[in-house]
Structure formats: structure tokens, C-alpha cells
């Protein structure tokens, strides 16, 4: 042991986490795409000249710019350079086209992305907190185990869509009255999705807590006199990080899809309020003539879900010191 070794401060652990995360190429690429999409949906609507709800009947039913590639070989370049004279209804001002009321789809996609992602992340957090709390409490405290697990079974047994339907019917009006239409429905949506999707997390976390509770380091902590709260925070939660991370990433994906499904069924946000699910719903009627109207929201939902899953995968590895290695 040299003096130099003693004097050198140990390296910050987060650099190790970053190094490990970088080594997962899929996660890194996904993180870049994810952040790019978030930036676009956050900043885009501020600088894009078209409002998502502004109708412009003269420019209705425009195609997206990819339609140019459907022309003859010679005409593609001309279409891309000067779309107005290409013979099809395309414009760089509406790169994704417009809908049947002439609303700019690009603006609607960006604005809808905000809502979908906000719903996804918030609902995931609600489900995660609920699920982890239920899982840890029922795994660690034997006396609550039976009641909490039966509650979980009960929630799992509830048919999801009718339940959501009832919740939306019951609470839509009062919440809209209290918080305003959009906020009210946002709160309703995230709560409804959150409290109907925490059960798998609770079960996985409980199973892991039951296993970890019997490990010797928990016994060691008990021999030190560690209180239950610290035991959970210090020993159990960090060790169930992996399943929680996986649940979280799947949860975002699941929440976005559920929101889309609800919007698609017309139970979600009001019709003039775009979300990715709503756009899908609106586009379905015109799918034959204008496939891009369902294609773009569909692609973005898939890409976000995929990115979140990859990032979660990379984060789980990066946060595990056993995999990280030193």
C-alpha cells in the first residue's frame, strides 16, 4: 500500500455506470433516439408554425413527403425539390401531410407525443411506486402478505377495459370540472392506467424480496440492529432493482399502448386533443387512401417502446455492480 494509493480519491461510481451503459450499443443508440424524440416533442411545437388544432380546409388531405418516392424515377428529385409542381398534393410545409380538416399532421404528432409520453411516464411511475410498495411490504412483513397478495389477485382478476370504461364514465366530469378538461382527463388517464397495471410489478418484487430476505447479508444487517425501514431501503430495494427496472420500461410501453387503446376507443382525451392513440383512431377511417395517417403514429409508438426497453435493459446492466465489474 503506497501513499499515492491512499491519497488518490476513489473514482466516482457513476463513471463506472456510464462506462457499462456505453458498452451496450443498443441501449446507447436507443437513448440517443429517445432523447431526440423527447426534445422534438418538447421544443418542436414551440417553433413549428402550425398549431395542432388549426384547420385549413384548402390544404386538407395532403400526402406526406415520402409519397414522392412513389413517382417515376425521374420525378422523385423534382418532387423533393419543388413539391408543388409534382402533380401530387405534397408540401415541405406539411412533411407528414394534413388530415381531412387540413390540420398539420407533423404538429399533431409532436403535440400528441408530448401527451403520450407524459401519460406513459407518469402512469408507469404510479404503477411502479404502487407495485414496489405492495411487493416489498408483502414480501418483507409476513403479516401483510396474505391480504396484499389477495388484493393483487383481485386486481388481476378485474377485466381491465370495462373497469377503465366505468372509471372514465364516473370520474371524467368531476375531474374535468375541478382541473380543467385536459388536466382532468390527464389525471384520470394516468391514475386509471397506473392503478390497473401495478400487479405484475408487485408480484415480481414480492418474489425477489422473499428470496433476498433469506440471504445472509440481511441476517448480518439484523445482527447489527438495522431497522426495517433502513433494511428495505438499503438492502432489499437495491437488490430488486433489476426486476423493477424491467417493469418500469415495460410499464412505459404498456401505458403508452393502453392510452392509445383508450383514445382509440374514444374514451381518452377529447377528439380535438391529439395523442398518438387518438391520431391512430382518427386515421383508421382513411387508412386505405392515406396509410401514412396510421403509419406515423404507429411507428412512433413502436420506436418509443423499443427505445425504452433497450434503455431499461442497458440501465439494468449498468446499475448492477456484479455485471459492471471493476
Amino acid at each position, binding site marked *: 500500500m503506497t501513499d499515492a494509493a491512499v491519497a488518490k480519491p*476513489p473514482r466516482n461510481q457513476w463513471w463506472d455506470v456510464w462506462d457499462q451503459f456505453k458498452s451496450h450499443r443498443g441501449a446507447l443508440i436507443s437513448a440517443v433516439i429517445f432523447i431526440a424524440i423527447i426534445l422534438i416533442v418538447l421544443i418542436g411545437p414551440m417553433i413549428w408554425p402550425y398549431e395542432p388544432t388549426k384547420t385549413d380546409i384548402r390544404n386538407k388531405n395532403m400526402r406526406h413527403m415520402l409519397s414522392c418516392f412513389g413517382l417515376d424515377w425521374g420525378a422523385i428529385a423534382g418532387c423533393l425539390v419543388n413539391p408543388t409542381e409534382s402533380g401530387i398534393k405534397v408540401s415541405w410545409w406539411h412533411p407528414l401531410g394534413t388530415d381531412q380538416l387540413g390540420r398539420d399532421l407533423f404538429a399533431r404528432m409532436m403535440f400528441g407525443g408530448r401527451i403520450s409520453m407524459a401519460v406513459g411516464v407518469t402512469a408507469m411511475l404510479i404503477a411502479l411506486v404502487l407495485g414496489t410498495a405492495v411487493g416489498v411490504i408483502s414480501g418483507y412483513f409476513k403479516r401483510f402478505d396474505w391480504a396484499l397478495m389477495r388484493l393483487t389477485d383481485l386486481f388481476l382478476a378485474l377485466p381491465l377495459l370495462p373497469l377503465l370504461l366505468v372509471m372514465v364514465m364516473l370520474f371524467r366530469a368531476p375531474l374535468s370540472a375541478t382541473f380543467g378538461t385536459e388536466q382532468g382527463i390527464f389525471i384520470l388517464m394516468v391514475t386509471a392506467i397506473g392503478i390497473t397495471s401495478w400487479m405484475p410489478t408487485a408480484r415480481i418484487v414480492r418474489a425477489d424480496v422473499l428470496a433476498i430476505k433469506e440471504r445472509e447479508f440481511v441476517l448480518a444487517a439484523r445482527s447489527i*440492529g438495522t431497522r426495517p425501514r433502513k433494511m428495505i431501503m438499503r438492502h432489499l430495494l437495491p437488490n430488486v432493482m433489476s426486476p423493477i427496472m424491467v417493469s418500469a420500461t415495460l410499464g412505459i410501453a404498456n401505458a403508452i399502448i393502453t392510452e392509445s387503446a383508450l383514445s382509440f376507443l374514444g374514451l381518452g382525451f377529447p377528439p380535438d386533443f391529439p395523442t398518438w392513440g387518438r391520431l391512430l383512431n382518427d386515421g383508421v377511417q382513411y387508412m386505405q387512401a392515406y396509410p401514412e395517417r396510421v403509419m406515423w403514429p404507429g411507428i412512433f409508438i413502436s420506436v418509443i417502446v423499443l427505445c425504452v426497453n433497450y434503455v431499461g435493459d442497458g440501465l439494468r446492466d449498468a446499475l448492477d455492480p456484479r455485471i459492471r465489474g471493476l
Partner: protein
Amino acid sequence: MPPALIRGLCQLLDNSAKKLVEVKDLKMHFPVYAGLFRRKVGDVKAVDGVSFDVYEGETLGLVGESGCGKSTCGRAVLRLYDITNGSVKINDIEIGETPQSELRPMRPEMQMVFQDPQASLNPRMTVQAIIQEPLDEHTTLTKAEKAQKVGELMDAVGLNRAFAKRYPQAFSGGQRQRIGIARALALNPKFIVCDEPIAALDVSIQAQVVNLLEDLQEQLGLTYLFISHDLSMVRHIADRVAVMYLGKVVELAPREALYATPKHPYTQALLSAVPEPDPTKVTGADRVVLTGDVPSPSNPPKGCNFCTRCPAVMDICKQIEPTYQELEPGHFVACHLFETTGEQGGS
């Protein structure tokens, strides 16, 4: 200091030394549930009426074969379990019935070193955090003071301070056990239960760890309950040795007496199984080979627990449980061969 002198001093001290730990009739039964309604159908009598004392500054070795209840006994003494029956006194304070919450302020007095250094360290915590945990729980030191103390502890157990921010899996088995020992030492305990601290290590590392434990005992005046199945290692480190069989102590004696003149047939069999390093002395004639298996602790035999395998079994052994009595000063045996109180006394 020559070993003979130490031994002499120990024996001198034995008479005057204070009892740090007094265990009386300790029972630890684990209920067994079965059937459709999870009814209790019996008990696993892991520890079934164990009594011993540990004097201040000594090492009491606790030996026995796998599954005889050594580890359970060690854990029950520290009240990591809620014991079924019996009394445990540490420093003259009865802790047998104390609820866990009231035990907490007493935890710094008594610590434990675990068998598997891999499993006993939280893989998500750095070495710094692991050693610091007892300090977080029981002291109000500042962050810098804690870091300082952790550094001192790492020095004391021979770990490089520069490794404080590493995770347990970056260390070898011996180093991990040192981390576990540093954690046990953090609160300056008086009494440490070493639960097979060397069983998971290879031989060269075993010696290092045992020497470290001995050095620490000398420097800090520690008292050990040293649980092991390695008889030669116990002979090296322990001052007195208790032999357990199926949840009971069958013999307890000072080290020399136990190894020179084992009384209980089980102790004799155990000792005869220790490999002899000198091939010229190996005759094989005095090997006592036990037949059969250890009975299940959930259904121990009537009478003496050892009667199913004992080479010197008598009729009375299958009927009446032998009493645990002091044969010579400090030499306790539970065997009908030496029973002086019953009808069939003497050997």
C-alpha cells in the same frame, strides 16, 4: 509469549474470569407445517437444551457435524431468532425474552462473523458502505469521522484503504471475510460469534483469517464463540471446546482435556476422524467409525440422542436421557457411561 504460558494464564484466569455469556437450557425449535390447512405437525429441534458459559476474553469452540445445530445455536445466542425456550445472559443482562426492538441498543456489544463471505456482504454496497453500516445505525459521527473509522478498520484487518469504493465481488474470499470481520469490529463489540468463518476459504487463507482473529482478540480483548467443524482449527484457536450432537452439547471441556482424554463416545469418534499428519503414527486401529446416519432433528430418538450410533450403547441409553454433569472441574459430559446420579452409575 509461549503457548504453555498463555494456557497457564488462561487456566489461572478461568477461575477468576467473569462470565460474559451464560446460556442455560437454550431451545430453538422450528415449527413444521403440513397438510391442506397448514397445521403444525411437529418441530425441528435444531437446538434442544444447550447450556454453556463463555468467559471474558476466551474462545469457546463449538464443534459438531453438519446439521447438528451449531450455527442455529450461535444465531440464537445473538437473538437473531426468537428462541423457543431458555435463557441467554450477556454481560449479566437477560436477553432471552427481550423483544427485538429493545435488543437494538445492545447489538453493538455482540456481533457476528458469517460463514459465507460471499453471501454475507450486500453485492450492491461498496466496502465503505458495508463497514460503515453499523456506524450509521448506532453512532452520530459525521461523514468524515465515519470514513476515518472505516479506514482504521480496514487497516486493522489488513485491507488496502484504496479499495473502499469497490464492491464485494471484486475481492477474493479471504478479503471478503476480512470485510466481514471489519464490519463486526466497527462498534467495538465484546463478544463475537464466529459462525464457521473459515469453512468457505481454502487452507492458506484459513490460516491468515484465524491468525487475524487471534491478533484482534489479543489487541481488543475480544471474546469469541467459534463455531466450526474443523477440529484441528478449533484445537488451535479455542480455549475450551463444546461438542454438539443433534441439538445438544454432549461434552464441554478445556481444550487439552478434551483432545487428550475425550469422554463421550461421540467425541472419541469425532477426534479419531481427524487426519493424522504424520504417516508413521497412523495405525488405523484406534479409528472409531460410526455407522448409520444422524437421526432427524424433528424426530430424535428416545433417551440419549446418540443411542442409535453409539459404539458403547446400553439399554438405559434408549430409555432415559443422560444428564449433563460436571465430571471433573470444567469437564462436562452428558453420557450414561459416566452417570453418577442414576441407578446405573459409574463406568
